[in-house]
C-alpha cells in the first residue's frame, strides 16, 4: 500500500506544483497575487474539452491550443486590468482584489456557456495505458502529469537562471524602475510573463481535467487555495520552492489520509503549513520580504 500511496502523493504533488508555477511566476515578476489563476486554469480545461469534442482535435494539439487560449487570457487580464492599475500606481491590494473580480466573471461566464454540471473528456481521449508493477497501478496520464510538471519546471528554472531574458526578469523582480532605467522593456516582459504564467495554468487545468475526470466552472477554487499555500510555503516567487512545497503539500495530504484518517487530509496539510511558517515566516526558500509593499 505504501508504494501506491507514494505514487498518489507524487501525482497530487506534481499537480499542485504545476499549478503553483504560474502563480508564483506572476508574483515574482509582477508582484501581484493573481487570484484569477484558478479561473484561468479552469478556462484551459474547458478550452481543451471544447476543441477535443467539437473539432475532434488530438489531445496533444488540444493541450497546446488550450495553453495558447489561457495564455492569451492571461495577457488580456494584464493589458486590460493590471496595466491600468500599474499606471495609476495603485496600492498592492487593489490588483489582488481586481483579480478576484476577474475570477468571478470567468467562472460565471463558464457556467453560462457550459452549464454548472460536471463535464468530462469523451471516452478514448485519455491515453488508456496502464502499468502494473507489483501491487502498484500506474496510469499513463499520471506519468504524463509528473513528466510534464517536472519538464516545465526545469525549463522555466533554467530560462530564468541561464538566459538573458531570465536575467532581465530577475532585474525586474529586484526593481522594475531600475530595470527600466537599464533599458529593459519592463511592460513587454510583464505581458510576456502574464502570458507564460497563464499558459502554464491552462496546461495544469487540462492535465487535471484528464486525470480526475471532472471539469466544472468552480474547479479552480479548491486548487487556488492549495496554490496560495504552496507559494507561501515555497517562498513567494521562488520556482524551486513551488516544486518542493507542492510536493510537500501533496505528500502531507495523501499520507495523513492514508495513515491517520481521511477526514484529516486538509487539516494536517494546513496545520504543517502553519507550523513551518511559524519557524520560517518567509517560506522555505524566500528571503525575508524580498519585495516591499
Amino acid at each position, binding site marked *: 500500500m505504501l508504494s501506491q500511496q507514494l505514487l498518489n502523493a507524487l501525482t497530487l504533488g506534481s499537480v499542485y506544483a504545476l499549478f503553483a508555477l504560474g502563480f508564483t511566476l506572476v508574483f515574482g515578476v509582477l508582484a501581484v497575487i493573481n487570484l484569477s489563476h484558478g479561473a484561468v486554469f479552469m478556462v484551459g480545461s474547458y478550452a481543451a474539452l471544447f476543441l477535443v469534442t467539437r473539432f475532434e482535435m488530438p489531445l496533444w494539439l488540444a493541450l497546446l491550443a488550450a495553453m495558447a487560449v489561457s495564455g492569451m487570457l492571461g495577457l488580456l487580464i494584464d493589458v486590460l486590468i493590471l496595466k491600468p492599475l500599474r499606471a495609476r500606481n495603485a496600492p498592492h491590494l487593489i490588483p489582488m482584489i481586481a483579480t478576484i473580480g476577474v475570477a468571478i466573471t470567468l467562472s460565471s461566464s463558464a457556467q453560462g456557456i457550459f452549464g454548472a454540471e460536471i463535464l468530462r473528456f469523451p471516452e478514448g481521449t485519455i491515453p488508456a495505458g496502464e502499468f502494473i508493477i507489483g501491487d502498484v497501478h500506474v496510469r499513463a496520464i499520471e506519468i504524463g502529469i509528473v513528466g510534464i510538471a517536472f519538464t516545465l519546471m526545469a525549463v522555466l528554472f533554467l530560462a530564468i537562471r541561464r538566459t538573458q531574458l531570465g536575467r532581465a526578469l530577475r532585474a525586474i523582480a529586484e526593481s522594475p524602475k531600475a530595470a527600466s532605467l537599464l533599458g529593459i522593456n519592463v511592460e513587454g516582459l510583464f505581458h510576456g510573463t502574464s502570458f507564460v504564467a497563464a499558459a502554464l495554468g491552462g496546461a495544469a487545468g487540462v492535465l487535471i481535467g484528464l486525470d480526475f475526470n471532472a471539469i466544472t466552472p468552480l474547479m479552480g477554487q479548491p486548487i487556488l487555495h492549495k496554490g496560495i499555500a504552496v507559494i507561501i510555503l515555497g517562498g513567494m516567487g521562488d520556482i524551486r520552492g513551488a516544486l518542493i512545497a507542492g510536493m510537500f503539500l501533496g505528500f502531507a495530504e495523501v499520507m495523513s489520509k*492514508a495513515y491517520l484518517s481521511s477526514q484529516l487530509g486538509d487539516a494536517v496539510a494546513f496545520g504543517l503549513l502553519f507550523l513551518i511558517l511559524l519557524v520560517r515566516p518567509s517560506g522555505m526558500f524566500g528571503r525575508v520580504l524580498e519585495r516591499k509593499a
Partner: protein
Amino acid sequence: MSFPRKTLFLAAAAMLAGGALAADIKIGVAEALSGGAAQYGVAIRNGFQVAADEINAKGGVNGNKIQLVIEDEQGKKEEAINVFKKLIFQDKVLMIFGPTLSNSMFAAGPVANGAKIVAFGTSNTAGGITDIGPYIFRNSVMESDVLPVTVATAVKHYGIKKVAVIYGNDDAFTKSGYDVFKKVLADQKLAVTSTETYVKGDVDFKAQLTKIKAGEPDAVVCSCLAEEAANIMLQSRSLGIKAPFIGGNGFNSPKLFEISRLAGEGTFVGSPWSNVNPAPVNVNFVNAYKQKYNADPNQFAAQAYDALHIAAMALKSVKLSGNLEAARQALRDALPKVSISGATGPFKFRPAVTKDGKPGGFDADQTPFIYIVQGGKFTLYTGKK
C-alpha cells in the same frame, strides 16, 4: 356544421347530468409548487393529476368525479399550516395530500389530526412523521426500508463477508445515508475493513481508495451522489479494486453510467420505484405522464400517482352522505385496509410503532426494487442466475 353542434349538445347534457346526479369528491393537495422544494412538489402534483384524470375518465369513484383542490405550501412550515386550515375549514375537502417536506408535515400534520381529517404524505421520509397521530398516513418509503434489502440481496448474491465504506461527510443526504448503512451493516453482522470520507468538490479519491484496497473488502458500500460515485468507481478500477459497489439512493441517476461507463458493473442499488418495472400499471403511468407533461416521471410522481389510487380504493367503500365529518372519519377507517398493486409495486399500510405507545398513523409496507448494474444499465434483479 351540425355534427359538432350535436356533439357539444351531448357533452353539455352529459355534464349537466353528471352535475345533477353525482357530487364531486373534493380532495386537497398541499404541495410545494414554488421555492426550493418545488422540484419535488411539481412532480408530485403532476402525479396526482395523472391519477385523477385516469380515475375520472373511467367514471370516477362510484360515479363521483374526483376534484383536486391544489394549493401551494411553498415548502414552508407556516404556509403549510395556513394551506391546511384553508383546505379543512374553507374548502371542506375530504382529505389532504401533502405537504412535500417532512418538516412541513411535522408542523401541519397536527392541524389535520386535531380536526380529524386524513393528512396523507407521499414524500415525507423522516422518522416520527406518523407519530403525530392516527390521521397521518404516508406511502413514502424510507432509506431505512430500502438499504437493508439492498445490502441483504447483494450479500446473498456475492457471498459478502466484509465491506469497506466511503461517504461524503459534509452533505446531509450522503451523511444520513451513511448512518443508515452503518446500522444495517451492524445488524447484518458484516465486518467493515475501513470507513473513508471525502468532502463536497473532491475529485481525487485515490488515497482513500488505496487504503480500501489494502483491506481487501468483498464489496464497497458507497453513500455518495451519482457524480462522485462515478469517479470513485473509475478510480477504484484504475487502482485494481475489483470488488462490486453497493449504493444508496444517490446512485439512482442516469449520470452514474454516463460517467463511469462500465466501471460500475455488478453494482447493487435499491429504489422505491423503477421506471423499467414492466407491470402494466407502471407502463400505463409512465406513458400517461409522458403524454401529459412531455417529461419523464420520477419516483415522487409515481408515489403521488399511487397515493391517489389508494385513496380512490378506500373511497369506494365510503358512503358520501351530507355529513362531512362522518365521511372524513369513514375514509380514515377505510384507508388502512387498502392494498393495491400500483406503479411502485404491491402496496399496503402498516400501523406505525410510536415511541410513547400512543396510537399513531400508518407507514408504507412495501418491498423496494433492487437493481443490479449490467452492461452499464440498471437491470431489475431477479435472483442469481
